[in-house]
């Protein structure tokens, strides 16, 4: 049941998108999000959809897999759409009891749904095609300029790497502890909400204890290998911006220009 979570997962591959420099990918994802909010006409979304689809096809991520990642936020999408549709003032086009659905409301709701879906799909492409290590490497390099004003870029990146590294470990551990307590007759599925919350204690306490133990051991192991933070630390893989990165940048900037122009269009 816990194994169904796909957010933040990485699908190893060797495609054009996989090979892009992580810094470029993070920047482009950022620009992509801005573009999503620049566009205010439906016509603009045709270009965004085409751009997104091409990126997915080039990255060779199974489309089915991407949409499975949308499932957990399905309710948020529906909720947003409904709220927008009924709470925006405008000309009433449909009436259910006291609830008015307005023309402007529907217009906004469709926008919100499109934005949310593209937002999730776009950022999923980033995490699905970038290994956690490359991702944090990219973040560290992007934060580097802020070191001067006291942002601990290396430490933040290292914390993220460690957190990502331990997600599968903790999931495994949770599964193991749950089974061990079930073998002792624990029941996590029935009873009212208070009983169910109480039944989590036998899982959470051992999980916390082992997390602290792991953190302690990891810190010792890092110290034993002379880890002293980011200063003067060299790296095994140097990040380099290459031809394909410029291709990706060009296409994204093109999309940005189109989306700015699309604001003047009628639909």
């Amino acid at each position, binding site marked *: 049941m816990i194994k169904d979570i796909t957010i933040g997962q990485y699908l190893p591959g060797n495609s054009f998108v996989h090979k892009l420099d992580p810094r470029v990918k993070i920047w482009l994802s950022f620009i992509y999000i801005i573009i999503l909010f620049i566009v205010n006409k439906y016509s603009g979304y045709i270009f965004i959809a085409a751009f997104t689809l091409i990126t997915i096809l080039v990255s060779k991520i199974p489309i089915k897999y991407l949409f499975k990642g949308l499932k957990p936020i399905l309710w948020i999408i529906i909720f947003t759409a409904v709220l927008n549709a009924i709470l925006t003032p405008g000309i009433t086009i449909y009436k259910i009891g006291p609830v008015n659905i307005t023309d402007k409301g529907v217009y906004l709701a469709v926008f919100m749904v499109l934005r949310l879906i593209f937002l999730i799909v776009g950022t999923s492409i980033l995490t699905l095609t970038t290994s956690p290590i490359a991702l944090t490497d990219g973040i560290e390099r992007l934060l580097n300029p802020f070191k001067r004003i006291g942002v601990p870029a290396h430490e933040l990146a290292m914390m993220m790497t460690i957190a990502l590294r331990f997600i599968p470990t903790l999931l495994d551990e949770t599964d*193991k*502890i749950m*089974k*061990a*307590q*079930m*073998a*002792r*007759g*624990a*029941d996590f599925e029935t009873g009212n909400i208070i009983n169910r919350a109480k039944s989590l*204690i*036998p899982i959470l*306490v*051992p999980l916390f*204890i*082992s997390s602290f133990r792991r953190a302690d051991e990891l810190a010792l192991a890092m110290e034993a290998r002379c880890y002293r933070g980011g200063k003067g630390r060299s790296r095994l893989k140097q990040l380099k911006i290459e031809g394909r990165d410029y291709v990706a940048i060009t296409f994204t900037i093109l999309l940005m220009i189109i989306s700015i122009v699309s604001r003047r269009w009628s639909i």
Partner: protein
Amino acid sequence: MSIKIENLVYKYMIGTPFEKTAIDDVSLEIKDGEFIGLIGHTGSGKSTLIQQLNGLLKPTSGKIYIDGEDITSKDINLKKIRQKVGLVFQYPEYQLFEETIFKDVAFGPQNLGLSDDEILKRVRRALEIVGIDFEKYKDKSPFDLSGGQRRRIAIAGILAMEPKILILDEPTAGLDPKGRDEILEEIRKLHKEYNNTVILVSHSMEDVAKLVDRLIVMYKGKNILTGTPREVFMEIETLEKIGLAVPQVTYLVRELRKRGINIREDIITVKEAQDEILRLLRRDKND
């Protein structure tokens, strides 16, 4: 209580590229009161197999009968099965969570809905079996104890449910030789006293050789050898091929026989080897 397994198959992550067959058509029978050693290398499917025996995992196909009752059927009461089949996981000390040792050991019996008197009685008995002084330790925090003692508390937590079938997954992993011998001795005494069915999962031949009635050897999800330790350890070639070693004395005996010493072949414990070598030496002297 008897266990019967028929054509059991278990696959992980069905329908994904990561699909893996962990148990591949295993059939076996364990009689009431038997002391079984389940051995195999890491990844041979032992842990997956034992998790099926109390319904924590559902088989992909095949049947499991506990005392004639099919536990793979849909409308089975899993709580009852888990009371009958006690499973001690690997490193069970990591599942302790209560403030006091008493409360932790009582967790299982409480889940069974027993009366306070009965719980008290069972906790006392369970702690006694694992050699922990009830009066002295009952109000202490389990986290103040040493690793070996914590493991005993965790084992007592299962024993307090008084299962008819007790399964222990590598109960001696990570313990020093003294702690290992003590725990094995407690398990042996428990089996002798209550005559319940015990399944001891291990990859250490030395541990199981002197304890169990029968060995089940797993390799790549299959049950490849079954028999008394003596019978199984005679298959040195097969065992070595799958990365398992026989007890060291068995190697010694084989070396001695190679050099022309007429020693018995089927020796599996140090004690037996000692007696046999002394017998040979005395006979030589008398000649």
